[in-house]
């Protein structure tokens, strides 16, 4: 396509050598990390490196966007590394470029923030932390660039490993260790499934480059097997229910920038992997795959939202909300497969754009929110919602930026969260065109579930923001909570601006997503003009303009304000809040997080394993305690461990300690083999 930018030389060189440049940038991260080892114990030294990493992030984002717009894709390269008969293949196409863009944009904000975040570090030495951090970034970039199974697996597991070490940075706490163990174990099992999936994909020709897999023609059974394995593998990493158990443990355990990266970036790489296999490596898609993913996605979304609503730890709450958003993304993928399988490419690309944009949005606002929790954590040393409150007065910066994130993740116009959900609902509207009697009656209910989830998300975020930043301080110490320092503010502001920009000018990202859908599905939705309406199918069908909404609200509010001031007056008297005739109220008497979750517990009681401790009426120091548990843990995972234990006990009997018995074993083996050969 002839683009004005093409004239400028840099852009052309970038777009022709994009892949190599990207690989070098990835290497730059690694070098930065190794460099940090020089003064491994000096915190300021490491802290100075993070912004440099952010610069690399920015350049990667920039290049990725250039590639998406003008790049001559795909580009391939073969690295002088890897196995002798299977060197590392790298490939840059629109899909990987899109996810690199995502990585760069959010990564930049997180890295800048990290520069200010890591302060008095206990646990892993700062230099080592810096190394692990940048290895994590680099491995995620390589995952999107890998073009053969081995390279992919290496990058993938390196990602898991580095993030594991980051999660266990404060390994002195037992629960952190437990979380880390659970995380790495699940990650590894997932990786085994992915490996198996590749094993199936190569279709018996023992070619492990993705190129070969693309051209492999699998029988329906094998294709489905590969797809299911991939679903389990990537679903585990993405935190799809019921493979999600590690997520609410691991994300809170990590330092906040790491939680942000895991939630915002790493989960997206899982989405990338799913798309890569489903739409690029597999040559065909069957409609029931779509139904399966759709069901899983919707269930995860609802499950995540409901559990997030009853959390009392702010980072756990965000972790569950990640499960919800991943569910939404996979819902989009499911719809895409459904449309694609029933040969409706336009709507398929609509759903896929929705999924991609939501992945991008999620990475931005979830990073933003996790980082704000980081600032709050630093300012108050509190993670429990029950001990926070009123921070909007002591930390206005964080509070304001967090508000942006809150509104965005709650899916409210005119911010970015709404755009993707709107697109997704739009694509739901066209499901009646799918030629399956039952499906087009059932799937609308899916839309209803999605709407319910979105509204629940709003509920959750109101709780999150209201309890942390609004109201009165639940602890006296919060009076002196200090606001974020300047690096942190820059990082947060960057991400908040991201939320706003995408919300107001969704066409920007719609173009990026369009490039992807163009390559994967051979069709793009109606992109519209950059500042015009967002009307993916046609303005007649449905249209939306965040810009108008934002501007409109501002104008009306402005006018109203002026008018009110002109006609009436601005006089104000400060008084105490209405105490309902009970003047001895303390700040502890505010509504608590548990209280806010109560309607959810009441309505969705069947989801949880709950145990309550109600105080007795004549209790001098009454205590109300409630524990919410994940049912899936007890029903699915404990039995597995129990059986392994039992099996291990049986096999353990072989090592009974009696020499004659051992001799008997070898004797019997000998006899058996002799009989065998005779």
């Amino acid at each position, binding site marked *: 396509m002839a683009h004005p930018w093409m004239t400028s030389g840099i852009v052309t060189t970038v777009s022709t050598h994009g892949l190599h440049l990207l690989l070098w940038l990835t290497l730059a991260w690694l070098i930065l990390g190794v460099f940090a080892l020089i003064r491994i114990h000096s915190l300021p030294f490491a802290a100075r490196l993070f912004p440099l990493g952010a610069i690399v992030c920015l350049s990667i984002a920039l290049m990725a966007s250039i590639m998406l717009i003008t790049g001559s894709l795909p580009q391939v390269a073969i690295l002088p590394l890897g196995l002798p008969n299977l060197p590392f293949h790298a490939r840059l196409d629109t899909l990987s470029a899109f996810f690199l863009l995502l990585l760069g944009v959010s990564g930049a904000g997180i890295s800048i923030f990290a520069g200010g975040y890591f302060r008095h570090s206990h646990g892993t030495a700062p230099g080592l932390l810096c190394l692990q951090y940048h290895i994590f970034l680099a491995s995620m970039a390589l995952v999107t660039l890998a073009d053969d199974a081995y390279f992919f697996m290496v990058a993938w597991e390196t990602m898991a490993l580095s993030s594991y070490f980051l999660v266990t940075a404060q390994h002195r706490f037992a629960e952190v260790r437990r979380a880390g163990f659970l995380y790495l174990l699940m990650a590894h099992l997932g990786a085994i499934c992915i490996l198996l999936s590749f094993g199936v994909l190569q279709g018996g020709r023992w070619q492990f480059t993705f190129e070969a897999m693309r051209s492999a023609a699998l029988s329906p059974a094998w294709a489905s097997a590969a797809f299911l394995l991939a679903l389990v593998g990537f679903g585990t990493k993405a935190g799809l229910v019921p493979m999600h158990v590690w997520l609410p443990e691991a994300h809170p355990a990590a330092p906040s920038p790491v939680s942000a990266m895991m939630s915002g970036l790493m989960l997206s790489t899982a989405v990338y992997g799913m798309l890569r296999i489903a739409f690029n490596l597999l040559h065909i898609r069957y409609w029931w795959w779509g139904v399966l993913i759709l069901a899983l996605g919707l269930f995860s979304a609802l499950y995540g939202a409901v559990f997030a609503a009853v959390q009392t730890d702010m980072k756990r709450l965000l972790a569950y909300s990640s499960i919800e958003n991943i569910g939404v993304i996979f819902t989009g993928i499911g719809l895409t497969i459904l449309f694609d399988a029933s040969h409706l490419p336009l709507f398929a690309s609509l759903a896929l754009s929705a999924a991609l944009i939501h992945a991008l949005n999620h990475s931005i606002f979830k990073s933003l929110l996790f980082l704000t929790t980081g600032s709050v954590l630093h300012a108050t040393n509190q993670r429990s919602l029950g001990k926070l409150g009123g921070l909007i007065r002591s930390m206005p910066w964080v509070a304001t930026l967090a508000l942006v994130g809150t509104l965005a993740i709650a899916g409210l116009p005119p911010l970015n969260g709404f755009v993707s959900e709107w697109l997704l609902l739009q694509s739901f509207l066209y499901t009646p065109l799918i030629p399956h009697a039952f499906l087009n009656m059932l799937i609308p209910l899916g839309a209803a579930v999605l709407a319910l989830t979105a509204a629940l998300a709003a509920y959750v975020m109101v709780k999150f923001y209201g309890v942390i930043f609004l109201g009165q301080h639940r602890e006296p110490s919060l009076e002196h909570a200090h606001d974020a320092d300047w690096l942190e503010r820059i990082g947060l502001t960057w991400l908040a601006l991201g939320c706003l920009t995408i919300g107001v000018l969704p066409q920007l990202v719609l173009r990026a997503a369009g490039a992807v859908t163009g390559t994967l599905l051979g069709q793009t939705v109606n992109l519209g003009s950059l500042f015009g309406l967002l009307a993916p199918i046609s303005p007649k069908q449905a249209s939306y303009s965040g810009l108008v909404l934002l501007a409109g609200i501002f104008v009306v509010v402005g006018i109203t304000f002026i008018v009110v001031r002109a006609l009436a007056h601005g006089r104000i008297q400060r008084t105490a809040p209405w105490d309902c005739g009970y003047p001895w109220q303390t700040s502890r008497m505010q509504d608590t997080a548990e209280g806010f979750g109560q309607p959810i517990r009441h309505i969705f009681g069947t989801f949880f394993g709950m145990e309550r401790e109600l105080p007795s009426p004549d209790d001098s120091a009454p205590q109300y305690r409630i524990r919410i548990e994940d049912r899936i843990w007890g029903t699915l995972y404990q039995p597995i461990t129990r059986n392994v234990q039992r099996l291990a006990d049986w096999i*353990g*009997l072989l*090592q009974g*300690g*009696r020499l004659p018995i051992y*001799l*008997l074993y070898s*004797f019997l083996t000998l006899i058996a083999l002799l009989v065998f050969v005779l």
Partner: protein
Amino acid sequence: MHSPYMITGVLNLLAASLLLISFAMLSRRRTQRLITLFAWQGVVLFASTCLVGYRADLTELYYSAALTLLLKVIALPWILHRLIHRLGVQWDSEPLVNIPATMLVGLGLVIFAFGLAQPISRMATTITRNTIGIALAVIFLAFLMMITRRRAITQVIGFLAMENGLFFAATSATYGMPMVIELGIALDLLIGFFILGIFFFQIREQFDSLDLSNMESLKEE
């Protein structure tokens, strides 16, 4: 000269006696008896080796016969005797699991061994080829003996008996291995045996008995 048949007959007789001795070892309780039996095994081996050597006039077989005489008839039994005197266990007897049953199993093993030896002896060119089965049987019986025994020393004797079986197999199947190997094997055997000798005392001072039932602490509890 004597007729080859006669020599073959004698050889077969010796082989049979070897088998007999193995069965006897399987059923003996007294350590001392076992040692004597082991020595007898050595004697039989020596005789058979000499005969084979004479029949196929191979000088190196005489060497290995001499080696056998030195090692298995004189040295080892003597050392064993000294050992059990030093350890003062010459008179102690050990419980055996149900001798008739063991005998029956042994019988089964012998049949199995003969069956196994068919293809081998069919292709062997030696005059003693049909005794390979017996050699194999001796090995199996020694194995069985090791399994059924509870005392360290008796197990070692079982081990040595197995070595004898192997040696017999070597001579009977192939007129013995090349001399280098023979020497190597003998050397290993000797060293191993000395190590065992040292072991016995260490085990004694640690466990104050040579009963294997004390040595069952390393296991999956």
